[in-house]
């Protein structure tokens, strides 16, 4: 019995030891009585200061919309300039089309494609351009003119008659991006865009 009692006393002492050490750890996390205050961070750049007059709530940044060929649309075909050249070296094709509300390029392949004396080239251009579609930010008439034999500008795209589509935020600027899908030989400086 005495032995058990001694063991018990030892156990109580152990509990106390554990409890006291635990309190000590907990207390060590508390600040010292007269601990120094942390220094305020030095400001390297002048702080932005508030204004007391009127209040201007700054909204989010407006990202401009880019009016360009909508690459996400399927079946968009690019025009092979070299092929057009091989069909007709002096081809002159003018297409009067309409950009629809969904961005599609609409025209009548017979009446809207003018290519006097260059029918084959006109057919080829018409076939490819029918697959083109733009981002649906603007709508209205568009004129695309090919002059394969010209020395200066070989492609002229007139988008000056396009108007902002209804529903597109009037405050968001619309920039002009890539308006054509032509590869194999047409240089960038041979293209003229008439915006206004």
């Amino acid at each position, binding site marked *: 019995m005495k032995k058990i009692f001694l063991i018990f006393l030892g156990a109580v002492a152990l509990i106390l030891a554990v409890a006291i050490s635990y309190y000590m750890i907990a207390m060590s996390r508390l600040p010292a*009585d007269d601990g120094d205050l942390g220094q305020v961070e030095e400001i390297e750049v002048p702080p932005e200061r508030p204004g007391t007059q009127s209040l201007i709530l700054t909204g989010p940044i407006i990202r401009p919309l880019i009016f360009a060929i909508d690459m996400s649309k399927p079946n968009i075909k690019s025009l092979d300039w070299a092929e057009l050249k091989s069909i007709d070296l002096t081809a002159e094709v003018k297409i009067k089309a309409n950009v629809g509300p969904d961005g599609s390029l609409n025209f009548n392949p017979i009446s809207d494609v003018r290519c006097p004396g260059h029918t084959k080239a006109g057919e080829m251009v018409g076939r490819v351009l029918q697959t083109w579609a733009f981002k649906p930010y603007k709508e209205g008439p568009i004129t695309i003119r090919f002059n394969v034999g010209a020395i200066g500008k070989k492609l002229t795209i007139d988008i000056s008659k396009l108007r902002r589509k209804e529903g597109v935020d009037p405050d968001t600027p619309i920039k002009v991006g890539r308006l054509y899908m032509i590869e194999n030989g047409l240089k960038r400086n041979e293209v003229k865009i008439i915006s206004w």
Partner: protein
Amino acid sequence: MAFRRIEARKDFELPTFIDIIFLLLIFFLLTYSPVPPKVGQSTLELNLPEAAGTAKVNQNEKLETMMIEIMPVNKEKPEMGLQVSVLLPFENYDMEKAGAVAYKDAKKFAKTYQREDVLPTEYVTLGKSEFMNLPAVKLINDQLDRYVQEKFRIAKLTNRIEIRADRSVSFRIINFIIEKCSSYEDLIPSLVFRTMFRQE
């Protein structure tokens, strides 16, 4: 045939039991980690006494700049108003070469050179001119003018005034100091508030 008598049931093994309990206890103590309640979540507000080790103002801390101290005259009796003391980092303007003074000395000098006054509790509701005519407000106004004139002649990012105020002090007097400092434009680009926070 002689049968052996069944032995009496053994006693409950207490020491072994204690051993196991201790092991379990130590295991749980070591593995326990209290999860702090998340912000916005329901928390049980308990009004508990503070643990020992309250961080007091460091009496020996050397003042770096002018400090405006606004504390209740008597915390138990808020109707007695607020004690406004303007503590300077030197004894007085004509003795500023003596070097930076400690907080406790600055308090003494504030008393000696009458850079302290009592702000009555009704200051929050007073009209603008009445508020401006309060002696404690005048004291802050005049002392700030003097300090800026003497110490902040050039606009510097490090030019600042310190404010130590009790958490219960109304924004009006603080806003007065903020507006007063902003009237010097770039001479005082920032203020430093020394405020008590509950530790997290």
